[in-house]
């Protein structure tokens, strides 16, 4: 098979993954594709293998050749350090909570993603700090005093928006969001998802949004139930 580098944010085909020491495979997935600029909500209860699936796409676990490609590159062809660099260049990550280095300011937290990636720095339109501030501004963080303060003084909702800005800085092809809204209340949730989606679409990044929340379906281009996608062993 071949991977199309131009259109796909990621492409998973015939992926089987078994954790070392387990007998049954955790992941058995025929195919999942996300195009750049598109958003995909992957929904499923915890323990269904979602985290393993995200790890596979982020290149944290070793997957067989030809099963996972991100931005046209087969992750199995990359080793250790090269995979770390590839991730820094092409994937923006947003976690559930604690996305920020607490003692760095919001702006410095956003700039972290450029620190280890030459490619992301090159893709910036302007000085890194300006771009970071513009992104934060677009995500609704305008107060410059707030942006200069240590991240730990921000509210959880603000922190998640800073995390989103960091994931987006330098226009990676793929944004992986692992339950980023689970710590937010319903209203903040909706507005966060909309902002994130809008920024991803504008940057031409594919957004893979993993959540067990109901009620977010309408905000995404596609919704996939993980339980239907994955035929691997499930823990619960």
């Amino acid at each position: 098979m071949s991977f199309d580098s131009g259109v796909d944010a990621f492409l998973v085909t015939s992926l089987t993954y078994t954790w070392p020491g387990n007998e049954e495979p955790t992941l058995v997935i025929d195919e999942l594709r996300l195009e750049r600029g598109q958003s995909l909500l992957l929904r499923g209860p915890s323990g269904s293998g979602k985290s393993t699936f995200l790890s596979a796409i982020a290149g944290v676990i070793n997957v067989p050749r030809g099963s996972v490609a991100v931005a046209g590159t087969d992750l199995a062809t990359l080793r250790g350090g090269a995979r770390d660099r590839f991730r820094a260049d092409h994937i923006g990550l947003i976690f559930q909570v604690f996305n920020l280095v607490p003692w760095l300011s919001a702006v410095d937290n956003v700039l972290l993603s450029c620190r280890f990636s030459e490619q992301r720095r090159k893709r910036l339109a302007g000085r890194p700090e300006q771009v970071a501030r513009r992104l934060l501004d677009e995500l609704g963080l305008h107060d410059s005093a707030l942006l200069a303060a240590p991240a730990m003084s921000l509210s959880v909702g603000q922190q998640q928006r800073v995390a989103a800005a960091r994931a987006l800085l330098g226009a990676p092809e793929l944004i992986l969001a692992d339950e980023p809204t689970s710590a937010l209340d319903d209203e903040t949730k909706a507005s966060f998802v909309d902002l994130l989606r809008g920024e991803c679409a504008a940057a031409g990044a594919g957004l893979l949004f993993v959540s067990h929340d109901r009620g977010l379906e309408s905000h995404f281009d596609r919704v996939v139930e993980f339980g239907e996608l994955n035929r691997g062993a499930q823990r619960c």
Partner: protein
Amino acid sequence: MLKFGLTSLWNRRFVAALTILATALSVALVLGVERLRSEAKTGFANSASGIDLIVAARGNPVQILLSTVFGVGTTGAGLSWDTFEMVKELPQVAWAVPISMGDNHRGFPVIGTNSEYFEHFRHSGGRSLEFALGGVFADDSQAVIGSELKERFGYGHGTEIVVAHGAGSVSFDVHDEAPFRVAGVLAPTGTAVDRMVFVSLKGFDELHTQREPVEEDPLAGTTDGAGPFPVAAGRARDRVHARANNDTTVDNYAEDHASRPDAAHRKNEHAEHGHEPEIINAIYVGLRNRTAVLSIQWRLSKYQNESLTAVLPNLALLELWSITGTAETALGLMAAAVVLASLVGMVVMLSAALEARRREFGILRSVGASPARIFGLIVLEASLLTAAGLILGYFLLTGVVLLADPILADKFGLRLGSGLPSAKEGVLMLVILLCGVLASLMPAVRVYRMTVADGLTLRI
């Protein structure tokens, strides 16, 4: 990465500051010990400069050096005046100064000598003695005192001082019937001279001759000729020698003293032809040509009439260092242990923070920092902490030295000096820095394993 490391440390500035302070204190201690050690050595070496040989009755060179130059204890036995004259007449000898000792004033050694002492003694790299007040003793009832006596007891010109027998500060026999008047006060030298009281040989002897016992053999009291090499080492001198042994030994004195009524006649005899004591303890010798020192030393060791030891002060000092070396090593080891403790403290600080920083490392990983970079971050932090500790420690030491220097110079004659670190101190500091970096490898390896195991999951 440097900026990130610095801000990360700044975020933990309280603990980091404590770590730096601990390192700084240990660095200051190590450097201070090292400096004290080297300065003490130069200080000691300064005390004996200008003297080529110290001649005394056969004994341990270190003991001879300690008793004569540093005023600690006494030489075992005495020398006859004949020996002094013999040494003085040797063609290679430029000058010879007799030294008598064994008494003290309030714990400070009293030295019997002549005015040449003040001409020839050198200290601190060749400086001669200077008088802060008055001058050399003009007669046998006058004394010259070191600067410390003036400072401690407020002695000045004309003060009467009383001498006690024995070299220790606790004396059981006070010669209060023969007080000395202070004729001169020496300027501070930073050597043992500051702690000494100088009187003329005659004055020194009078302390004793006033209570000299009657000899069984009346001839024993007279001096046997003044020739440099008296061929007939008569029975009389042997007896004199034997008495000298007693005289300079504190233990024996009280006992001897009881059995010795006054023998004043001797004093009168000597007064007639310049004072020639039977017994002196040592001779400071200066040579015309220092290359002759070994041949003179050998020649004196073969001297027939008396068993002599001629001490090269510098060699004896080396021997002294080999003795004090153990204490120095112990001191050095202690200082090293303190450094070790402070480095362990740093490792503890870095390790304790690892769990709390797991999130920080996870975030760094997620934005593309490899485990190796995070490993490097920990090592960098340790290097920064150690370097800061070194710099602070050095300034701390400099500050302490600036404060303590006048006091140390005064009390012990040690001048530590400040300014740039010496080569040895530089090496020492480099070694400490290296140890700091090595010590950080332990938490760094842990963090490496942790970040690899954690992957991109963020643990709380």
